């Protein structure tokens, strides 16, 4: 009697589980379609933040046009280990292409090599992995160019003898570290009196950026400017400057999405914002994937879709999307991303 009841419960649970699993499946036409559809796994550094969501949106739109299926999945915190797990899942799932923005280039090297050995095309976007472990890197802007751009803009805001601090995404983010290196090199050469006081990580977290900006402003009275170098750090830092009423003393310069910074730019808590179009970055990534699949050659100086002219560095297999865009209170409404 008791056994029978247990069996009933077990059967009930199995049926319930089956029901839940089948009802959760996304019923897109591409799932039902032909077997040889190209499937692309796209992995951001972190899911649920607007920058990468924009990338995914652009990528998805173009993938749909080309009849490819895009699977977008990222870790819930910027964590290299969970990225590795996601890549592993995607390899088992049998994707044809992996497009990834690695949190840590070395951490994903082994797994990306494994993927390529299985014939999967690996493309990096936003941030690079180790050069041998990917086919092409779709870079938004060259690190050197961006480093110079940031320092030049900063000097316009605080003059060439000021003190500034950097809010970075994380201390192991490869692209951020490279930008900072270029900034330091360029500044040492061109503006020797400009002084970098400290670098503080914000872990892609607004609350941390907010708290640390407040700390920085109080701890360093000589501070003239802050460079917030991640899309999550920008709004947090701007909020801190606004709350402390320091918008005239501290010049905040952010790499952030214009939509997030719109209000802050208009009221002056942030003085200037720079970014590239993440939507276009997603599109370009898919465009490159398409070309690799068709065995087309990527041409330096060509325009793909409406994006370009792009720069292609053959020796490093790196594509550079273009110049960064600057947003201020006057032009920020012209951009929607």
């Amino acid at each position, binding site marked *: 009697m008791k056994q029978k009841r247990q069996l009933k419960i077990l059967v009930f649970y199995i049926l319930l589980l089956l029901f839940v699993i089948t009802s959760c499946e996304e019923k897109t036409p591409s799932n039902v379609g032909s077997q040889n559809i190209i499937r692309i796994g796209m992995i951001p550094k972190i899911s649920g933040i607007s920058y990468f969501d924009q990338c995914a949106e652009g990528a998805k739109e173009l993938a749909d046009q080309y009849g490819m299926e895009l699977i977008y999945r990222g870790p819930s915190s910027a964590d290299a280990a969970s990225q590795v797990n996601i890549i592993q899942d995607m390899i088992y799932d049998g994707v044809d292409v992996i497009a990834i923005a690695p949190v840590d280039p070395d951490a994903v090297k082994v797994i990306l090599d494994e993927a390529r050995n299985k014939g999967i095309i690996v493309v990096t976007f936003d941030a690079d992995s180790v050069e041998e472990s990917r086919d092409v890197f779709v870079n938004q802007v060259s690190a050197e160019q961006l480093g110079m751009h940031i320092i030049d803009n900063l000097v316009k805001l605080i003059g060439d003898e000021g003190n500034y601090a950097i809010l970075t995404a994380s201390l192991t983010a490869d692209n951020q570290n490279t930008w900072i290196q270029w900034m330091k090199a360029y500044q040492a050469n061109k503006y020797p009196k400009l002084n970098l006081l400290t670098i503080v990580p914000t872990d892609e977290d607004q609350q941390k950026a907010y*708290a640390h900006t407040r700390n920085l402003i109080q701890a360093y009275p000589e501070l003239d400017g802050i460079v917030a170098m991640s899309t999550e750090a920008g709004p947090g830092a701007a909020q801190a400057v606004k709350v402390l009423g320091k918008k005239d003393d501290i010049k905040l310069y952010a790499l952030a999405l214009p939509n997030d910074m719109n209000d802050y730019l208009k009221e002056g808590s942030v003085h200037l914002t720079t970014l590239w179009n993440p939507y276009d970055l997603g599109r370009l990534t898919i465009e490159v994937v398409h070309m690799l699949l068709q065995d087309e050659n990527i041409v330096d100086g060509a325009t793909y879709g409406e994006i370009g002219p792009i720069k292609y560095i053959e020796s490093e297999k790196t594509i550079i999307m273009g110049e960064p865009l600057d947003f201020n209170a006057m032009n920020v409404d012209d951009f929607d991303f």
Partner: protein
Amino acid sequence: MSIRKYFKNRESYIFLMTIILWVSISTTNLNFANPRYLLELIGVNSVYFICALGVLPLMIKGHFDLSIGGMIAFTSVLLSAIGSWFFLPAPLVILIGAIIGLLVGMLNGALISKFKVSSVVVTLATMYIFYGVSKYIYNTFTEHFRIIGEYKIQDYNGIIENMSVLIMALLTYLILKHTNFGRSVYAFGGDRKLAIQKGYHESVSIIKAHGYCGLSAGVSAALHLITFNQNSVDAYLNIEFELIIIVILGGLHILGGYGTVFGTLIASFFITILKSGLVFARIPVFWHDMMIGAIIILVIAYGVFKERYKKRNIKVGET
């Protein structure tokens, strides 16, 4: 109570440590000594204070809730959904947040008392559910979620956060000291069988304690929205670990049965000073995590040695 007796309390060492830390950081940077800035710090880190107070009764009971970050995410997503349809003044946002959090927390408690499994296992599961639901709502209705917080005015700032911490501290104190529920929490934390013999109802106590923890998460979510005008699902990922450290530093007995509001407040303050102070002391960030870990171990070790010394003294006195 004489001063000497006071310093035999479990809380006294963290109090002492906080003062030492505060003085030593203030010597490197005088700005830190400004009492106004200390108040500001409490405001900025109010979420940690409030959640630590909320989880205190639960930890005295010997339970824990791993879904606090998940509950904050869930409440803030729901709040901003409501805020995109209706105009809400800040106090009302906090009230609604508290109610949502309370209900979600009670759900946790109900599951635990119904299935009679460890709170850690159940809340680990519900953590995934809360994050999952929040992300689903967030990604589905993204365009609605930029609007909440338009009502925010400058004067609120800091005051509303500090007030919330104060009210939460008083509430927790009253609940623990003067209600039947508070007494049941200590009773169950001390000796479960004895508590049941005394006539305390176990499942009611569990549901209430988890509900209170959820309430603190809901209030935190509201405060986060009021400060940032934006919700971020992952903002308080892994906040639970920091809360464990805070409450244990505050003198909680790890097996349950002992813990005070005063100790928890001081320990929250200690962690806050530690995190901000390292920036003030101009220590390069590469050292921060290591130093935070090392200082916490030092403080815990000091507490343990003090306890041992005290016990030995009592024994010597007896013989």
